[in-house]
């Protein structure tokens, strides 16, 4: 199987892009035994912190791993290759770690982490590029070509690549979006998020993927199960984005926040221990995304755990 790439993206910040990325990575590796690569293109590095801890994010940078170094290789004119910058182990689930230790791997997560330095490196590249009469569009295009070539040899090694994109349209973010086979857009059931999600959807349809509707998986998170929140979510489904594939509603809860706070780099938890009361939501998210991808590709994903 050759990996498909899904960009987790929305121009609205704070809608749960990083949380969705990690929940989906855990869900697909655990329930479907998938080999997942998480690429973090957001300099806030939230999904990287969730998988590796803050110390791990810094350690990765110091060891020459991460998107920061891949971008540096572009700046240096090096041959495109992403493999040297990937951390092969970003697993936090005890079941996956144990299976690996017993030489019967069923599902795994690797990471190309981000770091706050990523944005500084990109800014420096932008200044240089624009100084030579380049434009944001030509830079995004050059980066996209470079990344496509850099990741090509890795596609047979993974089942799915999840790309956590930043809430802006910098050249790096646009390059990432241009590589995506599918787009996952988390949003929140409130009016400003609905507006931002609609704008993002229109921008991507116009400049990145004219067939976005058929490749778009939308997730609505709810802080509270109020009539207002249900109405907003319903409007999104029925009016603004009615031709999209919608995933299950994701609860924003203390369980989710706790699940995303890894205690230490050597800390592991069971699926049930990590997600507690939202374990079923992680399973439903993985199942629904699997249905979406099956509908897109015709390939059915087999579950390995219930």
């Amino acid at each position, binding site marked *: 199987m050759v990996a498909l790439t899904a960009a987790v993206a929305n121009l609205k910040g704070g809608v749960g892009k990083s949380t969705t990325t990690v929940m989906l990575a855990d869900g697909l590796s655990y329930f479907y035994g998938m080999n997942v690569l998480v690429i973090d293109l957001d300099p806030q590095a939230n999904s990287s912190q969730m998988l590796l801890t803050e*110390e791990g994010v810094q350690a990765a*940078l110091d060891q020459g791993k991460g998107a920061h170094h891949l971008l540096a290789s572009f700046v240096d004119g090096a041959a495109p290759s992403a493999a040297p910058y990937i951390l092969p182990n970003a697993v936090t689930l*005890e079941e996956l770690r144990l299976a690996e230790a017993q030489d019967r791997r069923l599902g795994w997560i690797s990471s190309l982490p981000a770091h706050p330095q990523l944005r500084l490196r990109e800014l420096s590249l932008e200044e240089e590029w624009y100084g030579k009469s380049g434009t944001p569009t030509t830079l995004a295009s050059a980066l996209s070509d470079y990344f496509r070539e850099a990741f090509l040899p890795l596609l047979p090694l993974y089942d799915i690549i999840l790309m956590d994109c930043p809430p802006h349209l910098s050249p790096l973010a646009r390059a990432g979006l241009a590589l995506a086979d599918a787009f996952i857009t988390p949003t929140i059931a409130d009016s400003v998020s609905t507006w931002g999600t609609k704008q993002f959807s229109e921008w991507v349809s116009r400049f990145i993927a004219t067939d976005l509707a058929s490749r778009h998986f939308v997730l609505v998170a709810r802080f509270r199960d109020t009539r207002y929140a249900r109405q907003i979510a319903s409007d999104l489904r029925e009016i603004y984005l009615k031709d999209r594939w919608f995933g299950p509603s994701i609860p924003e809860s203390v369980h989710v926040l706790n699940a995303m706070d890894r*205690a*230490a780099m050597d*800390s*592991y*938890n069971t699926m049930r*221990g990590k997600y507690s009361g939202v374990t079923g939501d992680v399973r439903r998210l993985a199942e629904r995304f699997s249905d979406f991808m099956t509908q897109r590709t015709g390939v059915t994903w087999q579950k390995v755990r219930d």
Partner: protein
Amino acid sequence: MAEGPRLSAVDYIDRFFDELRVEIRANPKLAARLVRALGGNVVFENEAKTEAANPYALAAEGDSVRFHSVFGSMKITEIRRVLRDNNLATRVDIAGKNQQQLVDMLYSRASRKVSERKGTLFGADRT
């Protein structure tokens, strides 16, 4: 609207402090915060110790001996609770560890978290 009983200023203040005393007895965390706000230092015992002890605040002081004296006197079940309540360990992490190992884990993980959150990722040497 009925008028309340006429009380002297001292009576009102007594009522206020009575309520505060009740809350402080029932809520060691609030007690610890209030004492800290007054610049004092308080030593809690038994159940209250587990409730009030903040491993991050103690680790931030950087005094390993004091940290170990506070948490080293706790029962193993209490240390496990502190580790889990503060998101410093999972059930998997603490399984099979003795009291000393758990206190060491508590100190190293709390110190690391404090250090991560106090540090900057934009240092001069991080170009």
